[in-house]
């Protein structure tokens, strides 16, 4: 505590006056000789203690009045205890510019607080000012106070999430003679502290997060494996993270096509609403009425609807062809060709190549297939036959180690399906596939993801990247699947499981476009690095891409004080940094209160 006019503190000597008066009058109190105190004592017994106490309380109140008045005149100033002034240190000042800081004026507050913090240090201190997100566009360096303040003002609110891990690791590695301090200014979302185990010299200036966020979490095709005729359905998931019910409108805007729905979402719950959209409209925006964090209130979608898929079958094509295109009257989205010579055929028009029971492939064919699989929307399905050559085994080694062909007495069924694999979700409530009999199959030790297993726990379907390996050949001698009604859905799921990757041209802020091409924003901005920095529509080679924020940041989940304590974080609040507080009014109020108390005591 400091005093602007400490000379007034001499006035505190006057506290002695009421004490002296008290003692003087106590000494000068008139003495009355009375016949007997017998009745007085009885009458006084209960009041006597109170009277003595009252006398002392009145004296205290009088002293307090004088003390408070003179302390108020001295203009006391209180300074926060954690950040003492003029400390000399090397300080990391990290501003949380993740989009959750867009609540109200949280980001501006963070910048202002950072400025205040910087001013609490000695001018000889050095600062490393950096944002939490979009660090790739930011070149921080150790700087003096003025440069630090300048850098601070260059930090803008980001559309992405951030992690403190890299920054803190760098901080630990810093070599400086000055004492090091790491100050994180932000809302403290749990995800910001991901993969951090323990922190030292870490201060968190807590900016309170908003609690009324509504977010569009995603927009997805209701049935991505159907070829829509006139309309397709887009399901939109809206989450209410607020503690109050949300009542508003959800709007879909695509070119001139506008649809609007009323929605009511109880606190903490999701709402999945569906829009029917004409097939010619592939992209648009879903919006909801705004809350203070408007960034996550819109969702840019670009949907690639299912078109005809060209499939090449090498090997036994009888049943697979039957499965993909049962008859001329049934319209399926597959265009099927078969070949007996993989070397000679041009694979470029095809999206799916199926090898059914092929014993061996040549090196040239491997080269061709590898080249074919570099395209992200292409896929290879391999049905393992009774004999597998070494080169084919090597080619499929990423999926698993193909061992020996097993003939069993009797048959096995499918025991388990990975319904978390999205194309297989249609089998979740369908036990029909588990009745399919398998008479012969290949033992494979999987390296890739096993999507289905047989009764003896051996893998039936293994996936790695855009290759799918099935541990049996599709013919009537190995399995009766060819007669099963689930044959067609299984083939469809296998194919769309492979080609559906990146079928939607949708990205998240911070992601990078892997394929080459000039990325242009709709406002003409060109992304040279290929990293999407803000949500919206982009074009690559006349193809439209949509970019959205990651809704994970929209969840208002901050680290608990217990977790902060466990991590070793020293939490500070904006109040403790609000600079020296003038306590004059407080002392004046105290004097007034003491006066009122004294009057009350006198009346009692």
């Amino acid at each position, binding site marked *: 505590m400091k005093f602007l006019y400490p000379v007034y503190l001499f006035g505190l000597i006057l506290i002695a006056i009421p004490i002296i008066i008290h003692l003087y009058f106590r000494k000068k*109190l*008139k*003495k*009355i*000789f*009375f*016949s*007997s*105190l*017998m*009745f*007085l*004592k*009885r*009458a*006084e017994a209960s*009041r*006597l203690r109170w*009277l*003595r106490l009252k006398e002392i309380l009145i004296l205290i109140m009088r002293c307090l009045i004088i003390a408070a008045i003179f302390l108020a005149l001295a203009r006391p100033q209180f300074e926060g205890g954690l950040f003492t002034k003029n400390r000399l240190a090397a300080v990391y000042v990290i501003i949380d510019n993740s989009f959750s800081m867009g609540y109200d004026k949280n980001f501006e507050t963070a910048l202002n607080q950072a400025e205040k913090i910087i001013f609490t240090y000695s001018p000889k201190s050095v600062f490393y000012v950096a944002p939490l997100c979009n660090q790739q566009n930011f070149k921080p360096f150790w700087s003096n106070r003025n440069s630090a303040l300048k850098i601070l003002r260059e930090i803008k609110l980001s559309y992405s999430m951030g992690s403190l891990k890299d920054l803190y690791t760098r901080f630990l590695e810093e070599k400086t003679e000055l004492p090091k301090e790491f100050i994180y200014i932000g809302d403290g979302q749990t995800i910001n502290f991901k993969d951090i185990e323990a922190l030292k010299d870490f201060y968190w200036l807590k900016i309170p997060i908003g609690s009324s966020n509504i977010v569009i979490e995603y927009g997805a095709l209701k049935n991505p494996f159907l070829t829509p005729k006139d309309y397709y359905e887009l399901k939109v998931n809206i989450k209410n993270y607020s503690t109050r019910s949300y009542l508003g409108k959800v709007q879909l805007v695509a070119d001139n096509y506008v649809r609007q729905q009323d929605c009511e979402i109880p606190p903490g719950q999701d709402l999945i609403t569906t829009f029917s959209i004409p097939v010619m409209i592939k992209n648009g925006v879903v919006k909801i009425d705004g809350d203070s964090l408007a960034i996550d209130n819109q969702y840019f979608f670009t949907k690639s609807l299912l078109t005809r898929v060209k499939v090449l079958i090498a090997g036994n094509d009888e049943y697979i062809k039957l499965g993909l295109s049962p008859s001329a009257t049934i319209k399926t989205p597959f265009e099927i060709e078969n070949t007996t010579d993989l070397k000679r055929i041009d694979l470029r028009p095809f999206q799916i190549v199926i090898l059914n029971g092929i014993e061996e492939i040549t090196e040239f064919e491997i080269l061709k297939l590898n080249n074919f699989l570099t395209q992200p929307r292409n896929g290879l399905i391999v049905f393992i036959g009774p004999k597998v050559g070494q080169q084919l085994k090597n080619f499929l080694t990423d999926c698993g180690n193909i061992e020996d062909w097993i003939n069993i007495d009797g048959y096995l069924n499918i025991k388990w399906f990975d319904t978390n694999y999205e194309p297989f979700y249609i089998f979740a409530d369908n036990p029909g596939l588990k009745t399919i009999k398998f008479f012969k199959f290949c033992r494979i030790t999987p390296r890739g993801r096993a999507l289905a297993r047989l009764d003896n726990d051996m893998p039936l379907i293994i996936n790695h990247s855009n290759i799918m390996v099935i541990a049996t050949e599709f013919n009537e001698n190995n399995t009766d699947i060819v007669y099963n009604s689930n044959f067609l859905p299984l083939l469809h799921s296998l194919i769309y499981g492979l080609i559906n990757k990146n079928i939607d041209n949708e990205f998240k802020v911070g992601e990078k476009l892997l394929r080459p091409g000039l990325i242009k924003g709709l406002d003409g901005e060109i992304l040279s690095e290929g990293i999407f920095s803000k949500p919206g529509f982009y074009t690559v080679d006349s193809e439209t891409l949509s970019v959205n924020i990651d809704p994970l940041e929209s969840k208002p989940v901050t680290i608990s004080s217990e977790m902060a304590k466990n991590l070793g974080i020293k939490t500070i609040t904006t109040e403790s940094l609000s600079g020296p507080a003038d306590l004059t009014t407080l002392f004046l109020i105290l004097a007034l209160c003491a006066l009122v108390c004294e009057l009350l005591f006198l009346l009692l």
Partner: protein
Amino acid sequence: MKSKARYLNPEVVARLSRLDLKARLVVEGFLTGLHHSPYKGFSQEFTDYRPYIPGDELKCIDWKVYARRDRFYVKEYQEETNLRAYILLDKSGSMGYGKHITKLEYAKFLSACLAYLLFKQRDGVGIITFDTKINDFIPPSAKKINFTRIIEAIDNINPGNETSLAQVLFELGRKIKRRALVILISDLFDEPKMVLKSLKSFRARKHEIIVFQIIDSQEFTFPFGETAIFQDMETDENLVIEPGAIRDSYQKRFKEFLNYYHQGVLESHIDYELINTEETFDHALFSYLQKRARLL
């Protein structure tokens, strides 16, 4: 007559120097105020004649005087009794309290007056002074020398220590063997239950008791204003008191204290007079004479 009656006022009496003189003046002042006193005429020794009044017994008419004067006169005699009276005078510290005159002074005058009255009526009178214990003990006698000793003893009394009234009364109960009239003059500032018990024990020994409870008016009203240190006159104990705050409570308790005695003595057939030191002496003397009349 009027000049003698003024000696019934305690303040006037207080200005007189000799106690025997005080007593004489008071008693005479008192007696001259009694018209047609019924308290004369019981003695066997002739004192005076007085005209016959209808209602007087015929045997009292002096026929010789009638023969000479042709008027009826009745003979008056000086009383001769075997009444033994003890005056018990409390000289404890609390008796030293008083606004104009102290309770002890009042009690001393009253004792002297009663002694004089008793002496004059040829009753045996003695005095006992006490605080925590018995200080003076003069046995009852109708001789003049005894009266002089009593007056001297009363004159020399100063306020003493604490009161142990009940204890002293129990002790006296054992000492006074013959039936007697016991006149207790005290403020009775002791444990009322015990005091009443001791008085009852007197009654049980067939003694007649008159209790004069002497109280100062300030003890009734508690008129003090400012906060002050109150010192107990018996124990010297100090207490800082804000009188205004406790006045009602004090008055209530004091009244309860007096009522307790009043009720207690009534039940025990003990004569009791509450006397304020501002009252004249005739009130006390009158009540004594009433008692005496009942006894004889």
